[in-house]
């Protein structure tokens, strides 16, 4: 498990990605507590999964791409577990719940167009990250990191 300072940085970066600003002290406390309770990082977590999380921490702008990759190739992986945990914490806490769950302005047609765009971006990100992360996966496997 990462140290507290690292988890705090990670929490802030992930909260920004989810659209909830940097979270707040309570959210951070809960995020750290869940890690300390041992419900996030399971015994079978691989070195590759940890590398992806480290990459997401170091390069927060890459989070969406790494998340897309994980959604397809490792839905139960460490990054997805951390993101879903944070989403669960944020949705219980005002005002983040409102930020996460309020419809945006626009028409239904605009919504469908946007969904098509999101789908196209998602597919592209999955393909690109699959290629870019291949070396990381190979190194992790070669290192036998567990």
């Amino acid at each position, binding site marked *: 498990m990462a140290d507290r300072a690292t988890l705090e940085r990670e929490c802030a970066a992930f909260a920004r990605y*989810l659209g909830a600003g940097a979270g707040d002290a309570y959210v951070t406390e809960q995020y750290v507590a869940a890690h300390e309770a041992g*419900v996030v990082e399971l015994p079978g977590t691989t070195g590759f999964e940890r590398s992806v999380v480290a990459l997401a921490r170091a390069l927060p702008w890459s989070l969406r791409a790494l998340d*897309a990759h994980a959604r397809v190739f490792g839905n139960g992986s460490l990054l*997805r577990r951390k993101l879903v945990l944070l989403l669960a914490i944020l949705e219980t806490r*005002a005002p983040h719940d409102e930020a996460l*769950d309020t419809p*945006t302005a626009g028409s239904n047609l605009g919504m469908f167009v946007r969904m098509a765009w999101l789908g196209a971006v998602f597919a592209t990100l999955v393909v690109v990250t699959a290629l870019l992360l291949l070396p990381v996966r190979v190194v992790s496997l070669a290192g036998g990191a567990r």
Partner: protein
Amino acid sequence: MKRVLIVGSGASGVHFAQTALEHGAQVTMLDVGRVAPAPVLPDASFARFKREHADPAGYFLGSKFESVLFPGAKGEYYGFPPHKGFIFAPLERFRMRASGFDPLTSFARGGLAEAWTGGSFPFNAQELADFTLGPEGLLANYGRVAARIGISGADDDLSRFTPVHEHLAPGLPLDPHSAQLFERYGREREHLNTRLGAWMGRTRAAVRADDREGRNGCTNLGRCLWSCPREALYTPSLTLRALLKHERFTYLSGRHVARFEADESNRVRRVRAVELATGREEVHEVESLVLAAGTLASAKLFLDSLRAHGGRAPALAGLMDNRQVLVPFVNLAMLRRRYQSDSYQYHQLAMGFERPDPRHYVHGLVTTLKTALIHPIVQSVPFDLKSALWIFRNAHAALGIVNVNFHDDRRPGNRVELEADGDSTRLVVQYAPSNDEPERMKAALATVKKALSKLGCVVPPGMAHVRPMGASVHYAGTLPMSATRAPLTTSPAGESHDIAGLYFADGTTFPFLPAKNLTFTLMANADRIAQAWARA
């Protein structure tokens, strides 16, 4: 004065007790009786709760985050929150294993119905045909229970399937999504009725809009799933609380009843219970004994008693449960709207689907998505989480689910029996669905999807979820009532044909299980059995 000892404080037990007390009896109730946590911020809405509670994550997700639904984890959306953990917490002394069945038991005050979503749909004459009740059926009992607990609904299109009883209060105000669906149904009614055999109406629920006789009315806090903090949604523990004030009622909690004993003439004489805090055994002399511990717990108690009495306990055949299929839908007319958080959270509409055999009627509870934990749904959208969130927030008010219920019959292979477990015993539950179930489900679900489509809704492909048997917790049928005296059956009045003075007031005696939540019928049937017992 007649005296009776009741085992269990669930829906059946408390209503048997209330009727028995109304008839002048002396009532003792033995129960494990785990207690619900006290309501927190009882007047706060779902939104206000999140603003004002000091530890909302602890409340909604649990102190060990046990209610976070992680990707790939087992578990159903709308699983039970930490606040309701007391209902299903196991008891070490009650051992069970199951095949083809995911059984749930409860040792809480109020029993399994503490997790009831309030659906109160009376069985009709065809569905009660095997119940050996006589022409009066249960209608009067439904009315009596409705007067006690408060049932809301309407005499509408669904009345063709669910009889209207006395004391039916007006339905709660519909949330905007339910109102839109109901309005659309009004426009498409002829097609739905005549072409699809699909009918829609207001749900019947154990909740009222108005304050009445010390009970609060529903004020739309949107917190039903976490146990209504105003106690507007009925649970049996409310009746138990009222019974505790009665001078002829004795409640002994913290007891696990191990077995009963009968004399040489096979009349029940005493009950042996264990005080859980001390492990001390107690003996209670009884005139009449009522098992109302729930079908599985009552079966184990009955079998353990026979085993202690005669050495070998038989298998009890005919276990039933309703198969449920969850069909999610998106109502295109509700996209991009703000969902209404201040609303009754559970189903406000219901659908009935005719089948060629009226006993095979299919019942659907229509729940529109309002207040809820959203992370289980958002993560299921096949995008990255940021995109999934954007899609969800624009679709939240348009989402809903139909909980489609199917009937069940008693079949010999579905049974419960005992096996030795050290110096104790374990209940073994075996269940297999009927051979025609896949075909029946396929045909019914096709109709459900067509009906939803006519209502302007889209069912995402591949998203229907077949719940495991046992999940609906509508267990029944192991010692059915029978007009003919036969072993391992009961009389129409619920008295065992094997042991005199022993009554079953829970689902044990149901000879058939229609596609409807059975809780309201459990209460009505317990009231009927108690009246028969009191008059005998």
